[in-house]
């Protein structure tokens, strides 16, 4: 049995809304008891539509927000950010890449500074070494050394996403949370970024939590799949289990709704139309 990098036990998250001058507020259960375990080097895909709680879960796993109840274990160690401020050792274990490549980079920060910032904050390394490591990471994600001194607005969406991935990897994390990392990208760029992620996973033995609404991407990249619906994990298993034998009605609806781009289904559609 290999090491467990991420484990959650009964994670819930409630939001209180309203409760102003008149009337009591409402409580929304964004997450209703999520249990999962993830081994080193594996990819867990979390699938669901907007408002299902997948991004809330991502923020909890990344230790940005605290769960209302339940336990979060990273590398077997319990984490509770409400009780104790995270030390940099814990902080660096989990990093995140966001969906929108245009919002996730500080427009006033050069690419080099974007990459060196995590090192300045967390490690006491000399300037020259910082620069060298940032430069190495930049080439690793497929950009050129001359991009080091440029600002984010000079890059395309796909390039920015590479930069965001490079930033997340600067601290050598164990776990990378990818929140819809390719949904804002073009098809051809999406393929490049997915390939890059696969390369990096092989090289560094990274563990991925891959959040997506796109089933074809999930089917391609995931080892395990969790389908979420209104804060609940309605389906959780290996990729082949979930895709070949979905149990829950919602999962079946989701699969049926996904557009198919294969010749067979086009034939079927055209035949139905002609009839």
């Amino acid at each position, binding site marked *: 049995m290999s090491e467990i990098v991420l484990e959650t036990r009964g994670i819930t998250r409630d939001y209180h809304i309203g409760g102003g001058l008149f009337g009591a507020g409402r409580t929304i259960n964004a997450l209703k008891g999520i249990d999962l375990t993830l081994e080193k080097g594996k990819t867990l895909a979390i699938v669901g*539509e*907007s408002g299902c709680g997948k991004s809330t879960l991502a923020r909890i796993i990344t230790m940005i927000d605290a769960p209302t109840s339940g336990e979060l274990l990273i590398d077997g160690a319990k984490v509770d950010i409400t009780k104790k401020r995270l030390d940099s050792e814990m902080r660096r274990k989990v990093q995140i890449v966001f969906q929108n490549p245009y919002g996730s980079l500080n427009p006033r920060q050069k690419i080099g500074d974007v990459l060196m910032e995590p090192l300045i904050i967390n490690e006491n390394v000399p300037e020259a070494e910082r620069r060298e490591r940032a430069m190495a990471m930049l*080439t690793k*994600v*497929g*950009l050129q050394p001359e991009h080091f001194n440029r600002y984010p607005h000079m890059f*395309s*969406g*796909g*390039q920015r996403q*590479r930069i965001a991935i490079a930033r997340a990897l600067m601290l050598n994390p164990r776990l990378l949370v990818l929140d819809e990392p390719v949904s804002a990208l*073009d*098809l*051809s*760029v*999406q*393929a*490049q970024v*997915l*390939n*890059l992620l*696969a*390369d990096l996973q092989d090289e560094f033995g990274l563990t991925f939590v891959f959040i997506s*609404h*796109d*089933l*074809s*991407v999930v*089917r*391609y*990249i995931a080892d395990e799949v969790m389908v979420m619906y209104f804060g609940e994990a309605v389906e959780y298993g290996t990729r082949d289990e979930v895709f070949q034998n979905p149990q829950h009605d919602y999962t079946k*609806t*989701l699969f*049926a*709704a*996904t*557009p*198919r*781009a*294969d*010749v067979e*289904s*086009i*034939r079927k*559609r*055209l035949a139905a*139309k002609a009839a």
Partner: protein
Amino acid sequence: MALLDIKNLTVEFDTAGGTLRAVDGVSLSVTEREVLAIVGESGSGKSVSMLAVMGLLPWTAKVTADSITFLGRDILNLPPAERRRIVGKDMAMIFQEPVASLNPCFTVGFQIDETLKMHTDLNNRQRRDRTVELFEAVGLPNASDRLGAFPHQMSGGQCQRVMIAMAIACNPKLLIADEPTTALDVTIQRQILDLLVSIQAEKGMGMIMITHDMGVVAETADRVVVQYKGRKMEEADVLSLFENPKSAYTRALLAALPENATGDRLPTMVDFSLDDAPYTGARP
């Protein structure tokens, strides 16, 4: 007969960095009862060419073409405002962001009423009945109660249904849908696509579906135009496009679909030796 026929359309933008050619010599036509999909990635000029036809481009745009005819009428040489008036009734457009396409200050019923007032001579009573009828046609439950709803009280899918109702209010001959489901969830996307296709078939409209999603193309189109960097790369009926793509670009696009993946890496543009492939990075 061709509903809309475009010959050699070019759209250029004057920018401080020189002239940028967004659409480069594109010809296409769509006939009655036909769904034409224009597929391409961002920057392929797929939306720009349709905006040019509707006269909705900013003043920095320079539009030239050999001819643009709609219902056999030349619309190329009309001033944009007049073109919009003529085109507005028989050609309708729906956009990507349904919530942003509706005016948040007015009820959805009022907004459809406005459209009817502009293009028809129905009286108050008839317009109201027509609006209810339209809401029912696009599958909005409790249609008569919905008239008083504001856009923010509806979900994205419902707003897109309202947009479709508004677009078909005057029984247009041609419906242009610009990425109509990109902002929606998968299950909602399915409903909206089904709705669009059934309305198109029922009314015998022509439809142009602008999209980047090969799945949407496969599910809706009769004929497909593939665009890349402002140029038309390929035009084919949907089955032969997927079965036997002619251009290298189309082959690359289809290969990049994760569901078509064979190995543990996806083929990218470089693997298809496109002379002006987009930036790919340092792949081994």
